[in-house]
């Protein structure tokens, strides 16, 4: 194999001497993966999440192009890109599914979905709009067969696009170069992009090709007899720290030019923004983390580990990075960017910081909490600003106005409604989002949190929720263990079907009722009214 690689490298070195020399950026070399390419001049390499994906580098044009549709008034902007993708033969040759029994009883099924660069390209284009291949040709460049594709994306997309791709058949992998831009700018962009494609070379690599384990979706079938709860807190903490350290090492290892890595007490900060913004955002993240620990500690006893805080230079970079992320990562990573609209930037970062914190604290509350609580708390946290190392909650003016109108029209919900209404009922209420936000703030940081009589309302509610979720879990396990009741006639089957149709609503209602009984069983009408008066007196 070594000999084969060396031959290819030599052949490419010879080929490069013949490639046209135009004014372009410095050659980018990835010694670990064993390739190099010279992107068009001023195109910048972007950071990538690199989690089980085949995208190994992305370069973005320094200029943003625009397209508009007269008939719809829709507008779209795009920074042309050049992606480098690698699909190892070892992976693409493996077909179908694999089932692996692990020590902890987990069975992992791998499904291979990306079998070639062409297949990857189809998936890539599907993410843009309706497309078709306009050209497919094979060429021989040095020792490698190169499949050259040209694609038009012209349906359900604002601004017709062109996608160019060259797929190089390497000795142990297929390498793809993909570029995407508006068709209107093809004349200007295509020559530079194709010239960059021609500079692609393979060389001896010092590392391993990516992945090798998973392509496409992964289905996890968890053994119900040995779930996560059986691991000791120490084991869970170690797993969490290990995951963070793996991510941190990977980040330090592949850090693009001009990016910095700093570390604070609870965050590894990876930034492409200026020093001042990075420092400010880091301090804010620490302040919010402290606020969460101080005010919502009762949410669970999970170990909250360190978190990655990634600060992109601008929105484009942020979008590119977010698009390269998988839906799950071993350790939490919060991504934000520098913007002139601080409230928006901080708002979205706050929400992510809260969700990352909650994932460690007790992830069940992320999906198992009633809608009012989950949405209300996330909204409150998203309004957090830091002054020094203190957090202040500043609601949007629009929400303040809406609450004032609701109060005037006597449309404010009674406090008991928040606890007892189903999500469907709640969201049908006028100004529901604002009402949820202010009620959550009242409980977590408002007068309720300072009232001797009511400061335990939220912790008690969570304790009851925890109990109900555990009971629910036990009940479901027991239900699964028991054979399901089967109908004995079509009439019985119809009746069961009807019951199932209505059971979701009934179950939600029942769950809410059960939490309220456990948390506020001893509340009298007077208590509810007193809590309601306190809430209204706390409204701005």
């Amino acid at each position, binding site marked *: 194999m070594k000999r084969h690689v060396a031959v290819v490298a030599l052949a490419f070195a010879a080929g490069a001497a013949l490639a046209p020399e135009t004014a372009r950026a410095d050659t980018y070399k990835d010694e670990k993966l064993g390739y190099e390419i010279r992107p068009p001049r001023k195109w910048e390499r972007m950071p990538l999440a690199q989690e089980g994906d085949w995208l190994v580098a992305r370069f973005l044009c320094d200029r943003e192009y625009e397209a508009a549709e007269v008939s719809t008034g829709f507008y779209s902007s795009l920074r042309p890109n050049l992606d480098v993708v690698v699909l190892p033969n070892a992976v693409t040759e493996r077909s179908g599914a694999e*089932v692996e029994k692990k020590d902890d009883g987990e069975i992992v099924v791998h499904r291979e979905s990306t079998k070639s660069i062409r297949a990857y390209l189809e998936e890539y284009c599907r993410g843009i709009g309706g497309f078709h291949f306009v050209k497919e040709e094979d060429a021989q460049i040095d020792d490698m067969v190169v499949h050259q594709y040209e694609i038009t994306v012209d349906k*359900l997309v604002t601004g017709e696009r062109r996608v160019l791709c060259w797929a190089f058949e390497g000795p142990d992998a297929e390498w793809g170069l993909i570029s995407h831009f508006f068709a209107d700018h093809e004349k200007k962009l295509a020559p530079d992009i194709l010239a960059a494609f021609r500079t692609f070379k393979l060389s001896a690599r010092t590392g391993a090709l990516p992945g090798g384990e998973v392509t496409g979706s992964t289905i996890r079938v968890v053994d119900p007899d040995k779930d996560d709860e059986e691991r000791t807190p120490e084991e869970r903490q170690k797993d969490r720290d290990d995951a963070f350290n793996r991510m941190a090492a990977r980040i330090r290892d592949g850090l693009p030019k001009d990016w910095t890595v700093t570390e604070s007490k609870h965050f590894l900060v990876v930034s492409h923004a200026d020093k001042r913004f990075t420092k400010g955002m880091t301090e804010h993240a620490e302040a919010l983390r402290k606020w969460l620990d101080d005010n919502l500690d009762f949410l669970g006893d999970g170990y909250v580990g360190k978190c990655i805080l990634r600060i992109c230079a601008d929105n484009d970079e942020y979008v590119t990075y977010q698009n390269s992320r998988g839906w799950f990562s071993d350790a939490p990573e919060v991504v934000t960017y520098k913007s002139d609209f601080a409230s928006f930037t901080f708002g979205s970062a706050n929400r992510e910081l809260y969700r990352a914190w909650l994932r460690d604290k007790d992830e069940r509350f992320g999906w198992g909490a009633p809608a009012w609580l989950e949405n209300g708390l996330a909204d409150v946290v998203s309004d957090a600003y830091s002054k020094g190392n203190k957090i202040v909650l500043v609601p949007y003016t629009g929400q303040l106005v809406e609450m004032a109108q609701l109060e005037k029209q006597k449309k404010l919900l009674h406090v008991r409604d928040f606890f007892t209404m189903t999500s469907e009922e709640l969201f049908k209420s006028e100004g529901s989002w604002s009402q949820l936000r202010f009620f959550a703030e009242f409980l977590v940081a408002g007068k309720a949190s300072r009232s001797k009589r009511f400061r335990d309302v939220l912790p008690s509610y969570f304790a009851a929720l925890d109990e109900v979720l555990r009971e629910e879990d036990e009940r479901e396990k027991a239900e699964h263990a028991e054979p399901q009741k089967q109908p004995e006639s079509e009439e019985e089957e119809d009746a069961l079907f009807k019951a199932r149709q209505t059971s979701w609503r009934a179950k939600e209602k029942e769950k809410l009722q059960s939490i309220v009984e456990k948390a506020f069983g001893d509340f009298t009408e007077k208590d509810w009214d007193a809590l309601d008066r306190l809430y209204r007196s706390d409204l701005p």
Partner: protein
Amino acid sequence: MSRRALALAALTLAALLAGSARADQLVLKDGRMVDGVKIVKKDDGVDLLYEHGTVHVRADLVDEVTIDGTPAYEPRTDEEREMREKGFVRWNKRWVTVEYREKKLREEQEKRVAQLAEEARHRNWVDRYQFETKHFKFESTLPPAINEEYSALMETYFEEFSKLWKTRVPKDWGKLTVCFHRDLKSFEEIGGAPRGVIGYYRFVEPRELHFFHDRRQPANTLAVMFHETNHYLTDLLDERFQYPHWVNEAMAEYYGSATWDPATKSMQVGAIQMGRLAELQADVAAEKFFPLSDLLADESRDYRHYYWGWSFVHFMMESPKYSAGFRSFFSELARGRGVDHKAFGMNFTTVSGEVCRDLFLKKVKVKDLDALQDEWYAYIRGLQGGGVLALEQAGTSAFRQGRWKFRAPRLLKEAIDAGSRNAQVYVTYAKCLLLKGEGDEAALKVLEQATQVDPLDAAVWAELGYHLLNMQRKAESERIIALAKEIDPEVDLLNLEIARVLASGDDD
């Protein structure tokens, strides 16, 4: 398509175009084309000799078969035998020499092979067929025969609709572009449709309609065509007016159930939407009704508009008592002079729920909405599904709803007994039998029937292979899986692969 499969297809096509090394080729009536496999003609169809088994395709499924090489001449009568001895054979009602017959047969075959190669070339969107009729511009990757039928349907529909609703195409619109895709995958890829969408009308410039040919259920293709085209035709009532979602989708569904007779090139509206009826009946069974006053004033995009709305429009349009009033209401929503239109994004207008309800009450001359609602609910209860398609849809729907023990198998069995030619109906019925515990053999028999109903549906063969694996008939299962892959290299075998690995897991 995998690279190997693509290479094979490319080679086959290249060979066909070159006309030198021809291959056998089969064209099915539903537009599918098979090549790269040896074909043998039989009295009742053709046999396809795959490496992993012979697949018999019934004559009623076959549109055309081309077999490489000229068939040997076999005299059947005494006269033919006598002439054969003299060196003559019968060809096109004439006596010709053996060499002449062979030459002519070769010429005909080459001509047809070239035609098929041309059809195959047009399956790529970049080389699609493009043609025009009186009111439409078509772009298609389907075979010419199907293009002809679909375009005739579209023209008939246009004429019928414009006669009833008195519509005309605005001068600056030109002919509408209609895109036919050869399957769901192409429709999603080329048309850019998100998963779950089965047809769409782009209602801003460039206006376009997109459909795909559902070879498994051609009736679905027609329903989608009638539905989506209705959105375009409704736009012709007033190009700036956007109908409220409930009545827009409900009217499209009403037209969506129209039936088409290709022989007389005529359409008939007012049939029952079986799938919608099944959804409706499920809601009725669960006592989840849609109040009429809510429906008439609804400004949301509630999914229930597709079936509750359909039933209401069906009730109105088919009722001699209400039909004229309802048509007037529908027309005046867009065109009525005194109707209060409000702005609706992107230079469009619409009406508020209140205006919509008031106009309905006025035009249909309704004084007691509750009484009308009672009439409507009674109408719904009286709606009956009928025919094979109804049974297929109701049975499949019942299966999805988890009613696999009694309702679904009863309806699916009735569909099969009534002559269903939908292989998926057989597969679903087999699943019911398995879930009910009626035995592997019973399910196996039904799955085998499914492979006879559609012998070139790789997914059906894969189901059979999966079932054989569960029955521990590993060798047979392996062969059937390999055959499924041969028929369609892209067939999704995930369930099968998992089952296979799990079945052998203990040995590893």
